[in-house]
């Protein structure tokens, strides 16, 4: 830490910290969880008591600070060493060697092994040195024989063995294909090199929470693969250190700490920075967390991508102290560095591959859509819209319909979501017309209802709003996480800070932190969606053009129909009127006295009248199919009143009885055409009726009332209207025929004659309202015609 950096907190905000205003020492200032992120882990004031640290002035090489355990490690009392030349500890030759190394090697921030020497009680110590900010950091730690591998390894022991292992590891890493395979090899190799019980690759997600993505462990240990941990579990200061060092050993999690004497550098008054010291004292929170998991020793290496921390290689040991030699740690550093480079490449390669794959999916979908002429085809088939982005479901709103694949919110919710989206300003951004959220319920509260399956939403508009939409959904993170067998059920121990520092609680905290959240949408995913949108838009434009062409064709064919109607009404009727006129004049001619001839002329006249009626019916029918409905909210009672009035004359002359059991509600329909339906049905009911009195009942059956057994499927959930008579009835075999054009079941003049088009027109009118019509009838006792007018809101309000 440079002299310009804050040494110990002096700001007012920091004054609440326990060590405010004085140099920090882990031993003196127990850290509480709330200030984890401010703990000065780089200047902990203490070293791991298994070794000793001397801070020397450079180039004088006199001892400025010494860890308080120097007597136990080096056989010299710390207080006595202060201000002494380093030769007091290293001997003249050692001091000379140190000076040589300092002069020749790049030791700034780079610990270098000096030599081994005997310490207190004859123990062999490794001396390791590095410089930092003008100070020489000289560490002594017990020598560990270099074990090449975990027991059972076939490789040779000793340093030669270590290089063999390293070489072998590198070779295997280089042959691994893909990120996952690489991680798997990495964990196996590190475990082989260190002999530690569990080696994990811990990946940081974009929101900084971590996940175990690879693991090699002692066979009897439960797997932690797939477990997630909150970002807080690796506090910010620790992450910062891992951007600067390549290996972090804590060989004895429960080991004692030794404070520096004095705590601050006597010349500068600042605490000594131990970032690069292997002996740096670990945070109390960290060791307690490890102890609570039953971890007795650990080793951590960063995986960096450029300047960012991609993840960690975290190694745990459960069988007591486990120190690694400086050489082993150096090998681990090397592995971490190689892994970092490889990871960066592998990740870029995989990202590139997935981009290529996504592009291929997009092209496949669009080719299919273009081929089938329907954008909707993108939700069908083995490769679908869902495969364009990592997601759990996708939906397309196109041409007035939803097309869904995978897990999506139910249709009514989709509609509400789409309505909300159409008001979003993001769709106006000309650079990227796209809405993305990894916490949809925070933006759109109604989404809480389906947070589990769609906490993440990425949506792009197709065409001007409120036009088409493409949406991708991601589930809540919790739904995605594999919670492999719940291995943390029983914390090994719980330290003084309580259960917070256990993986179990960690997971719960993590779970809380990601409630309602999905994994975030990455920038290359957004780009892929934007690209697909542009390609799909082209298709939409092409389709719009085709639609316009079709519309033209339809207009032309409608015009043809109009022309036909014109011809029918004029060209057919004109000669008909002529025929009628001459027949009439002959009929009136006094010279024609023959009764038979006069009867024939009468027939001729009535035939022309009938033909005129048929032409009118045909014209009406063609108009019904062609002219658009004018839908409005109507009072069905009023429509019925008008219809009754229109058939009124017939009613009076036939002494009929009209029954309306209960009032009707409001209906969304075309008033005139609905009235036409009723007029036709009512006049039929009166016409084909030989009873006295004629009885007609007009009523309705609510959507939630017991439906008629005869009702067709499409009438389900609809209000059913009916017109019931006590007339002549229709035989079962004729019941479908009554709806056929010009189909009459009776003699021409029976029941007052008629064109036979009435029910055909009624059916057409009902169908124009997207409704259904059917009948129940018994010969001799009457008929009931049922029909629906979808959009009808039911009976009486």
């Amino acid at each position: 830490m440079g002299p310009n950096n804050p040494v110990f907190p002096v700001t007012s905000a920091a004054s609440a910290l326990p060590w405010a205003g004085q140099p920090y020492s882990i031993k003196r200032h127990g850290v509480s969880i709330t200030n984890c992120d401010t703990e000065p882990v780089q200047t902990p004031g203490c070293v791991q008591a298994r070794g000793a640290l001397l801070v020397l002035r450079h180039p004088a090489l006199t001892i400025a600070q010494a860890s308080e355990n120097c007597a136990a490690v080096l056989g010299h009392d710390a207080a006595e060493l202060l201000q002494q030349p380093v030769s007091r500890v290293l001997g003249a030759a050692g001091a000379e060697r140190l000076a040589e190394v300092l002069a020749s090697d790049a030791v700034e921030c780079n610990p270098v092994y000096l030599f081994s020497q005997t310490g207190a009680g004859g123990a062999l110590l490794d001396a390791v040195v590095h410089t930092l900010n003008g100070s020489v950091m000289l560490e002594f730690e017990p020598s560990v024989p270099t074990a090449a591998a975990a027991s059972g390894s076939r490789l040779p022991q000793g340093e030669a063995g270590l290089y063999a292992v390293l070489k072998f590891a590198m070779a295997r890493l280089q042959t691994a294909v893909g990120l996952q395979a690489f991680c798997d090899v990495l964990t196996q190799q590190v475990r082989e090199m260190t002999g530690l019980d569990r080696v994990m690759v811990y990946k940081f997600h974009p929101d900084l929470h971590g996940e175990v993505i690879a693991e090699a462990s002692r066979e009897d240990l439960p797997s932690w693969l797939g477990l997630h941990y909150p970002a807080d579990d690796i506090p910010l200061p620790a992450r910062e250190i891992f951007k600067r060092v390549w290996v972090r050993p804590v060989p004895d999690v429960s080991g004692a700490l030794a404070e520096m004497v004095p705590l601050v550098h006597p010349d500068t008054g600042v605490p000594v920075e131990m970032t690069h010291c292997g002996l740096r004292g670990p945070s109390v929170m960290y060791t307690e967390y490890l102890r609570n998991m039953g971890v007795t020793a650990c080793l951590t290496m960063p995986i960096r991508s450029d300047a960012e921390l991609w993840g960690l290689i975290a190694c745990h040991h459960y069988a007591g102290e486990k120190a690694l030699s400086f050489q082993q740690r150096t090998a681990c550093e090397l592995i971490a560095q190689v892994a970092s480079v490889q990871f960066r490449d592998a990740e870029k390669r995989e990202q590139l591959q997935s981009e290529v794959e996504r592009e291929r999916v997009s092209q496949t979908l669009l080719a299919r859509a273009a081929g089938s002429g329907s954008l909707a085809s993108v939700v069908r088939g083995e490769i679908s819209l869902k495969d364009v982005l990592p997601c759990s479901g996708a939906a397309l709103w196109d041409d007035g319909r939803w097309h869904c694949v995978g897990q999506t919110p139910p249709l009514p919710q989709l509609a509400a979501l789409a309505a909300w989206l159409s008001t979003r300003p993001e769709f106006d951004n000309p650079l990227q017309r796209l809405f993305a959220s990894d916490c949809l319920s925070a933006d759109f509260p109604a989404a809480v209802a389906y947070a589990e399956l769609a906490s993440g939403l990425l949506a792009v508009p197709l065409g001007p709003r409120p036009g088409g939409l493409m949406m991708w959904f991601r589930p809540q993170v919790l739904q995605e996480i594999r919670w492999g067998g719940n291995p943390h059920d029983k914390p090994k121990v719980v330290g003084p800070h309580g259960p917070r520092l256990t993986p179990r609680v960690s997971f719960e905290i993590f779970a809380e932190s990601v409630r309602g959240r999905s994994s975030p949408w990455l920038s290359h995913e957004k780009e892929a969606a934007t690209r697909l949108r542009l390609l799909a838009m082209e298709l939409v434009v092409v389709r719009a053009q085709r639609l316009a062409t079709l519309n033209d064709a339809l207009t032309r064919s409608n015009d043809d129909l109009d022309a036909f109607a014109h011809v029918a009404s004029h060209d057919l009727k004109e000669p008909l009127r002529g025929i009628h006129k001459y027949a009439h004049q002959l009929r009136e001619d006094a010279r024609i006295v023959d009764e038979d001839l006069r009867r024939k002329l009468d027939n001729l006249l009535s035939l022309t009248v009938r033909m005129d009626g048929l032409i009118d019916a045909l014209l009406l029918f063609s108009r019904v199919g062609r002219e658009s409905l004018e839908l409005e909210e109507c009072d069905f009672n009023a429509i019925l009143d008008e219809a009754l009035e229109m058939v009124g004359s017939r009613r009076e002359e036939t002494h009929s009885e009209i029954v309306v059991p209960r009032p009707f509600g409001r209906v969304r329909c075309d008033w005139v055409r609905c009235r036409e339906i009723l007029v036709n049905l009512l006049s039929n009911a009166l016409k084909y009726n030989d009873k006295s009195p004629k009885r007609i009942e007009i009523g309705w059956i609510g959507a939630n009332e017991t439906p008629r057994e005869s009702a067709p499927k499409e009438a389900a959930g609809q209000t059913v209207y009916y017109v019931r008579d006590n007339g002549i009835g229709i035989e079962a075999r004729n019941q479908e025929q009554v709806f056929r054009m010009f189909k009459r079941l009776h003699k021409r003049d029976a029941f007052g004659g008629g064109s036979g088009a009435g029910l055909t027109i009624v059916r057409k009118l009902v169908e124009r309202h997207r409704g259904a019509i059917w009948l129940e009838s018994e010969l001799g006792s009457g008929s009931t015609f049922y029909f629906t007018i979808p959009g009808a809101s039911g009976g009486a309000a």
Partner: protein
Amino acid sequence: MTHVADRSILVVEDSDEDWETACDAGAAAGVRSCLHRVLDATECLAWLHQRLGANAVSSEAPVLVLVDLNLPGVDGRTLLASIKADVSLRAVPVVVMSTSSSQRDIASCYDAGANAYHVKPLRYPDHLRELASIFDYWLGLNRPPGVGAICQ
């Protein structure tokens, strides 16, 4: 003083049967001699221009033009529109007679400036009655332009 009944009714009708019916109705109403027939739109416009020149209230103006929609060549609706678009002719009342009862036809004729629209009935007696009412109204009750001024 010019009596309205002295003035002419121009019938644009290509159907001989319907022309005869019109003559029958005219005879019954006592205005048979007023009826003039042209067969199509071109003849009609020529006849009108010859009578009217640039003066729309000339006493030569017909009291009524009865147009059948279904004409050979240029149809009745177009003829109607031409008359109503011509400053010198537009004051002449035009009554449309057609077999079509379609709302579209009716609306489009009124849009083009028709003074009345009648559907030709199929039955001969009905047809006669309809024509008689038209003659009664336009020759008896209605006051065409130009005539009122002279009477006063």
